[in-house]
């Protein structure tokens, strides 16, 4: 608790600190490569035959996903707070890689918690983190996936709080994490708004993003919340809701309190947390950021899901029509566009957050298709 108060105070003062903001925006530009392009996906649009589709190319950010926006911000904050060590959890490995990168850049010790199962599925990212100088700590307990890695990281933080900052990877956990991570990610929506106004002279009709913990989606949506723009968040439908093997918290969960916040949660009738499934490790999580829960309940944003099969099909479709291999997470957002775009008029505009690139998933997809590489 004192750690959360300390973090909140440091974060609020950093927001007002011009030197900190200047360093952050300079690194966003020269290190991450921001602004990332807003790309008109002409052949993907033509293939679907309806709304014009733009892709916000977070896959082109350094390390290959939006995760770096937050990890870099928090690494700078950790240094400002005088911490010598950062820790983080990771599922697919993207946030772990981003945190290891931020730590290397700023000069901090870095340890990443990762479930045994995820380490097996994402061996490449484990090696990347080690190359970046981070220590990867295996979590062999519980379901051996992301939620257990978060438990371990929180335990580490409560033990080593005096010299350690916990770089939470998504808009979850206790305050101030959900709002702080959202603020670091909101650069996505701020850029997209400027870019679409310059390309089309008007705001889009619809925004689509995938929702795991919910950081890339809130990063795109936040800037447009007060505008007349529709939004859809896409969760992981796994093998379908009735199968019980999914990570669709809104479709299949109920309100619970987990890992420091109150939100929709996949749980049994006794309040124990259920296992989840998704083809994409980044969406494979039992709960969802509390701000999304609020935006769902208030009716501002519609939430739906795409199944593994739909996501895989969109993964291949974008690769073929645009020469862009998307992350399997982002493919869930693309799958929703495949359903909606054909029904929308040709002069309507959709922006999809292409939250990450798919290189990390290529082996996994090959395995699913039964191809040996």
């Amino acid at each position: 608790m004192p750690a959360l108060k300390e973090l909140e105070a440091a974060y609020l003062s950093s927001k007002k600190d011009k030197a900190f903001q200047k360093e952050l925006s300079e690194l966003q530009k020269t290190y991450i490569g921001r602004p990332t392009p807003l790309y008109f996906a002409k052949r993907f649009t033509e293939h679907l035959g309806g709304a014009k589709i733009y892709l916000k190319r977070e896959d082109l950010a350094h390390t290959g996903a939006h995760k770096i926006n937050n990890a870099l911000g928090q690494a700078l904050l950790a240094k400002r707070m005088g911490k010598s060590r950062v820790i983080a959890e990771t599922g697919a490995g993207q946030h772990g890689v981003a945190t290891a990168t931020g730590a290397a850049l700023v000069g901090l010790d870095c340890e990443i918690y990762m479930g045994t199962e995820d380490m097996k599925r994402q061996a490449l990212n484990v090696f990347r983190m080690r190359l970046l100088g981070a220590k990867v700590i295996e979590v062999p307990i519980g379901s051996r996936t992301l939620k257990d890695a978060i438990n371990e990281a929180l335990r580490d933080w409560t033990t080593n709080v005096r010299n350690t900052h916990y770089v939470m990877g998504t808009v979850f956990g206790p305050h101030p994490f959900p709002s702080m991570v959202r603020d670091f990610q909101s650069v996505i929506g701020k850029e997209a708004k400027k870019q679409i106004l310059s390309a089309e002279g008007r705001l889009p009709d619809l925004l689509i993003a995938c929702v795991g913990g919910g950081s890339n989606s809130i990063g795109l949506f936040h800037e447009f919340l007060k505008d007349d723009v529709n939004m859809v968040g896409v969760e992981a439908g796994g093998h379908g809701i009735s199968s019980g093997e999914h990570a669709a918290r809104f479709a299949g969960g109920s309100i619970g309190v987990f890992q420091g916040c109150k939100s929709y949660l996949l749980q049994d009738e006794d309040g124990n947390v259920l296992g989840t499934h998704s083809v994409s490790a980044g969406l494979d999580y039992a709960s969802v950021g509390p701000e999304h829960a609020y935006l769902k309940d208030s009716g501002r944003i519609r939430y739906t899901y795409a199944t593994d099969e739909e996501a895989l099909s969109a993964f291949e479709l974008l690769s073929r029509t645009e020469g862009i291999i998307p992350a399997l997470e982002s493919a869930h957002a693309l799958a929703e566009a495949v359903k909606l775009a054909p029904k929308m008029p040709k002069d309507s505009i959709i922006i999809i957050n292409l939250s990450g690139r798919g290189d990390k998933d290529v082996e996994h997809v090959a395995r699913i298709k039964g191809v040996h590489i």
Partner: protein
Amino acid sequence: MASSRITKTFKALKKQGRKAFIPYIMAGDPSIEKTKELVLLLEDCGADIIELGVPFTDPLADGPQIQRAAERALANGVRLRHVIALVKDLRKSTSVPLILMTYYNPVFKYGEEAFMKDASEAGVDGIIVPDLPPDEAGVLRRLSKKHGIDTIFLLAPTSTPERIETVVKASRGFIYYVSITGITGARLHLGSSLKESISRIRSLTDKPVAVGFGVKMPEEARAVSGIADGVIVGSEIVKRINSEPQDFSKLKEYLLSLRDAIR
């Protein structure tokens, strides 16, 4: 309001110049029947108050010993409602004060009002909810008062003066001082800082202070009992139960050695 069974226990011990021995076990590990047997064994071995862990899938404040015990109990099908039923059953044979240590979500899902009512009727004396800080616990505190259940909150070495004040006010029964920063079962460092922390709390309240997290061996228990009003031992007991889940004779020796050390 009549004083609770926990408060009475501490008062009686104080009169005798003794300190409380507060063991913790995980309900349902190795089975709910064995837990019943273990509670009676703990009482026989001189436990003054007993903490029953409620199994939860994501026990954030606990170390690996207790998490694994929770996994075993969950695999045995043991849930919060079964632990409440166990207490009800135990009340036929013992009046030792019983505290449930549970994470918040199972209580939230059960319904806070229903939980307090059922727990109180079953004979639960107190609750510890390690992931619910007192400033978020308004409803639970009100309901627990109404149903005569003590709410015990945690303090850590990193707690600020404001936090100490809040916890001291919100706690009933006793105050749980976590001797280390971190999780249950980690290593204890006994030093002057523990003494200082306890006296800082004592300067604010007459409520008893018990120390837990990290107490394993009789010599540590003895040292802690020289400072605090009660000594909580959890992970080490849970570990010993699991290493010999059918035969508690060695466990009994260990418990008696703890009891002897806590004076």
